[in-house]
Structure formats: structure tokens, C-alpha cells
């Protein structure tokens, strides 16, 4: 049975070879399915896993996305049940940094649709005129509709940072210290397209809309180009 399955898979993955042989025999056969249909690939391409989250067990990937104003380094490794620990380092123009560790889990994993959720916890550091620092967290949804080579995707996220401040009141009797925490909310959206170059290599381009410190600030739209590579697939 396994041998038959292997032959069937090989036939499906190599329709042009079959076509050439058939032509040589005087008959022309159409491929049964389009070449490299994502549903028939033995593993998911890295670009899909990186953009849509929830890679299979043992599959790992690294993404480098750069543009204006955001630059992101993202690494994922599947540990089973479509669950993957992830690491993210993000910076805006080299002034605002967020380093996070998190988990990615694919809730829906169909051949033409993947939906995953991510939770991240980390630390925010912003230097410059308006410096900010404190613990940060994010909840994120990733959706992708993979086709033969192209992976359109959408990311929606809600980021939160807690920014502690200290107030010291110097009285005649001594100094009183009190702490307060300000909440910074950053809703996030990314809409883009990933392109599979090979199973281990892909690229993406997308528009980013991160509204830092909403709603009291002005959102700056951005865009990026990304490179995705990995293994274990």
C-alpha cells in the first residue's frame, strides 16, 4: 500500500514526465492535478509556515522582513500538533525595539486555508525624545490562502505595553515613592503576498499598519519586503 502511495504521489508531482512519456506513445494526457498543488506537497513550504504560523513538527524557519518603518526578525520551530515556539525581534527605525518570545498554534489547517493564533510576551525599549520601556505582550491572528506559488496573507494583532513611572515626593518628614503604570496600545494589521521559491525559501511583500499608542497618536503606514528560509521539511 505504501509503495502504491509513493508511486501515486510521484506521479502527481511529476505530471510533465508522464505527459512526455504519453506523447511518445502517441497519446496526450492532461495532468490529473495542477503541478505542485499545495494540498499534495508532502510538507508545507517555509513561506506559508512563516506567514501563517503553526508549522508541522520539526519544521523550522527564519524570516527577515525589512522596510519602512519596521524591521522584523522572526524564528519558528514546530514541536507537534501545529504548535511552535517563536522568537521575534522587531525594531522601528532602530529607535524602538521589541524582543518577544511566544507560541504559534494553527487552529485551522486546510490545503487552501490556514488560520493560526499567536501569543507573545516580551520587552519594549524605545529611545529618543520620547523614551519608553516596559513589558509588552501581543495577541495575533494570522490567515493565509495558499495557492500554487502565492500565499496571500493577513495579520491582525493587538499589542500592549505597560510603561511604569515613578513619582517621588520629597517631604519634610521623608520621601514618599509611588508607582503608576501607563498602558500603550498598538493595533496592528499587515496585508501581503508571500511567494514560494522552493520548499525551503520564499519571499513576501506587504503593507503594514501599526498604530503605536492608539488612539492618541497618528498611525504611520509602512511596507516591507521579506525573506523566509528554513528546513526540516
Amino acid at each position, binding site marked *: 500500500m505504501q509503495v502504491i502511495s509513493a508511486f501515486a504521489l510521484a506521479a502527481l508531482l511529476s505530471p510533465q514526465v508522464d505527459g512526455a512519456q504519453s506523447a511518445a506513445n502517441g497519446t496526450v494526457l492532461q495532468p490529473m492535478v495542477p503541478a505542485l498543488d499545495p494540498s499534495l506537497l508532502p510538507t508545507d513550504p517555509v513561506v506559508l509556515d512563516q506567514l501563517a504560523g503553526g508549522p508541522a513538527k520539526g519544521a523550522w524557519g527564519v524570516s527577515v522582513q525589512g522596510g519602512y518603518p519596521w524591521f522584523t526578525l522572526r524564528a519558528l520551530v514546530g514541536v507537534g500538533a501545529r504548535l511552535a515556539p517563536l522568537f521575534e525581534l522587531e525594531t522601528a527605525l532602530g529607535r524602538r525595539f521589541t524582543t518577544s518570545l511566544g507560541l504559534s498554534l494553527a487552529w485551522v489547517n486546510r490545503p487552501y486555508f490556514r488560520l493560526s493564533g499567536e501569543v507573545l510576551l516580551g520587552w519594549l525599549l524605545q529611545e529618543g525624545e520620547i523614551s*519608553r520601556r*516596559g513589558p509588552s505582550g501581543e495577541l495575533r491572528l494570522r490567515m493565509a490562502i495558499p495557492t500554487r506559488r502565492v500565499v496571500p496573507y493577513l495579520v491582525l494583532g493587538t499589542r500592549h505595553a505597560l510603561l511604569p513611572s*515613578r*513619582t*517621588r*515626593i*520629597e517631604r*519634610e518628614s521623608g520621601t514618599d515613592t509611588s508607582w503608576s503604570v501607563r498602558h500603550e496600545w498598538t493595533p496592528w494589521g499587515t496585508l501581503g503576498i508571500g511567494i514560494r521559491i522552493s520548499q525551503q525559501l520564499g519571499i513576501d511583500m506587504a503593507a503594514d499598519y501599526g498604530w503605536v499608542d492608539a488612539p492618541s497618536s497618528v498611525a504611520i503606514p509602512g511596507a516591507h519586503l521579506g525573506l523566509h528560509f528554513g528546513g526540516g521539511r
Partner: protein
Amino acid sequence: MKRALLTSPALFLLAQQGCVNDDILLYEVRVHGSVSASETGTLHLEFHHEQSFGSGALAHPLGEFDRRTVSAAQTPLSFDETILYPQQKGQGLIIYGWIDTDGDGVLCAPGKPSEPSGLFRVSSFPAHGVEVRLILDKRCAAVESLFP
């Protein structure tokens, strides 16, 4: 050893950066004293830094950090207020006052009676308790016209 090598840089970075965003340092001052004025009404007090930012020729005078309103219906007028002085925002202490005689909340206005105002520079600052003698002998004078 390996763990220490890994955690030490992280702890060092965290210690360098800290987690405090705004570190506000306030100095509590009890300001009390008398007010000399020929009229009664509502006493408006403004508390200013003598110099709020900049230095040398670019130093910016004044910088309000608190204001109070005190009933001044009867003479002699006096007040006793406790304020929190932001230490990182400037230096020196200036107290400016005026009396709202017509109750419109505005210092003078066309067609309205001229209202008394005055300023006191606290020379003994910093101190947790300062005594002020505010003489309101100018007419329709804003704080910027009285200092420096």
C-alpha cells in the same frame, strides 16, 4: 558557567535600561503668607519656576506648574497652600497673584475695572516652608510684565 555567560548580558542590558519611564521628583512646599491689596474678591495664585528651561542667554524665565484660587472677601488677606514643586522642570520659585474684583475670572478686560496684581520671588527657596508677603500694587499686570 555557560548559563551565567548567557544570562549575564541579558541582566546587564536590563539593569542598564531599567523599567522606569517617567521619574518624577516633587518637592513639597508649604506656602503661607499675607496679601496686601486695596480691594477684595477672589485671590488667584500662580506658582512658577523662576527659570523653567535653557541656560545662560537662552534661559527661559517663568514656567507655571500650579495654580490655586482662594476666597479673599475680607481684609487682611492671607493664604496657606501646600504645593508640589517639580524639581526637574526648572529652578527658583515665583508666586504671582491677582484679585478678581468683578468675578469674571479674567484679569482685567475692556470696559471692566482694573484689577490689582503682584509678584513675589521666594529668595529662601528651596525650603519646605516659605513665608510670602504678596503686595498687589500693580494694575492689570500679567506675570510676564512683572518678571524678569
